[in-house]
């Protein structure tokens, strides 16, 4: 399959801060890829490299066979603006015309607005739109230039259920017509609803690159913490660490783990079970992997 966008060992520093650490990633034609990770994980930096806003400190970034810094290359991509920055005094139709003017191929205005349920708002000033309407307009703008590859940054954050479904339908329709999408979110639900492939980033690294199903299983991990001097081998432990005399165990089946722990007769105290955060789950797993390697 053709690779539409690619980073090879891309590293980006902001002063002393390492935002991306030797990331290699391929986005192939026709894929709907979800980029998942907590705030500050490096998602925005990665997107900024792909859309030409930033250059890598080292490594390579390719977009549609060219450089993201070349405006001609960017004719094939669409990006969502943050809805908070939309120019308030312009009308919906005017802003669509303005953005479309940048592209040689463009979607007809009425059709674009209809696709995102905005047809009635064409003459309305952007400042008078609701938050949800602005969000949908922002996403619609990404599709104005008939892009091959669309970057959607947190497309439905803050939307109600109905608006979210309408927006997801628009994105799916684009994908079914052969369009490629890179979607970022820190909500797994949003990625589950749309994406087939999930790339999890944390602390500037790609922590996992897998199917939605595989990633969902990892995210279902629980963290069992307890104080104990010595522990027997317990079933279903996928990661463990020790700090200040407490042991933290990561498992997909905490019930079974606790039952086995009690059965083993090993003394322990201060048992605590809680869901692990995405970042925790992935970091523990990757550090375990690297320790084994």
């Amino acid at each position, binding site marked *: 399959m053709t690779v539409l966008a690619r980073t090879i060992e891309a590293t980006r520093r902001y002063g002393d801060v390492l935002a991306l650490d030797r990331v290699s990633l391929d986005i192939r034609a026709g894929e709907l890829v979800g980029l998942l990770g907590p705030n500050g994980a490096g998602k925005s930096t990665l997107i900024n490299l792909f*859309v*030409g*806003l*930033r*250059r890598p400190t080292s490594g390579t970034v390719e977009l549609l066979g060219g450089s993201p810094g070349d*405006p*001609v*290359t*960017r*004719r094939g*991509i669409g*990006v*969502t*603006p*943050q809805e*908070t*920055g*939309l*120019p308030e*005094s*312009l009308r919906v139709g*005017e802003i669509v*015309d*303005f*953005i479309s*003017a*940048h*592209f040689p191929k463009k979607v007809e205005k009425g059709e674009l607005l209809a696709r995102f349920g905005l047809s009635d708002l064409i003459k309305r*000033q952007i400042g008078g739109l609701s938050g949800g309407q602005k969000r949908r307009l922002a996403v619609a703008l990404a599709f104005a*230039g008939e892009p091959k590859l669309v970057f959607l940054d947190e497309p439905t954050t803050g939307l109600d259920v109905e608006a979210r479904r309408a927006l997801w339908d628009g994105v799916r329709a684009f994908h079914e017509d052969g369009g490629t999408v890179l979607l970022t979110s820190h909500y797994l639900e949003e990625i589950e609803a749309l994406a087939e492939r999930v790339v999890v980033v944390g602390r500037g690294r790609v922590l996992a690159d897998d199917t939605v199903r595989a990633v969902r299983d990892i995210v279902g991990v629980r963290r069992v913490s307890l104080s104990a001097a010595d522990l027997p081998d317990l079933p279903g432990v996928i990661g463990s660490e020790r700090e200040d005399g407490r042991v933290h165990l990561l498992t997909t089946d905490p019930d079974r783990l606790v039952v086995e722990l009690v059965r083993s007769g090993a003394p322990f105290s201060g048992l605590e079970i809680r869901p692990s955060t995405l970042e925790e789950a992935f970091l523990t797993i990757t550090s375990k992997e690297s320790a084994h390697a």
Partner: protein
Amino acid sequence: MPSLVLAHTRYFVIESIRVPIGILASALFPAIAMLAFVVPFAGGDPQAATMATASMMFFGAMSGALTGLAINVAQDREQPWNPYLRTLPAGPFPRFVGRILSTVAVMLLSVIPVLLEAVLLTEATITPVRLLLGLAVLVASGIPFMLMGLLIGFLLSSKAAIAVSQLLFFPLAIVGGLLLPPAVLPGFVDTISPFTPARGAAELLWAATAGSTPDAVALVMLAVWTVVLAVAAGWAYRRDEGRRFS
């Protein structure tokens, strides 16, 4: 490329007409000052009225150039809309040219009230050719103030840009002889006046509209200011580009 420049210019002009705070801010003060000072005290003398009208018009245009650009450029840098536009298939050029052209449009719009007052309420006279020449000089002499606005806008936050541009604007206008003609300026002010940029702009305008002989020192200094400000604005632009887009 020209069609993109047009699209960006149109966008800025729509914004400045729908939210006309910039135009009003530039037009209001000179229109009031014209009514309060020029009409009663110089309105009857054709030569004095014409020169005072030119001064007041430049006062408005200078405000549009200096404070208008400083505030707009600084605000623009703080909006997430600005980096989004940089992901579109265009470099920074069309937006920059659109910004300058729309600033010129605001400068020209903001001189209209003063021009009307001059026609209706004073003995100011001008030929159509001199009027056109005057407007061309008004825009050209606005360039160093546009550069000053860009310098401030690229260097400072929007809050600081508002304060600093106002702080520079009024003293420069007064020392330049825009509010009071140089003849009535206090001695020490009149001594430094030719070395400040607004005086050179005013000298050129008076020459274009009323046929006076411009002060040579003021003209040379205007050219010097323009070059210095162009270099400084270019440096500030590259510094901002490096910080946000590299």
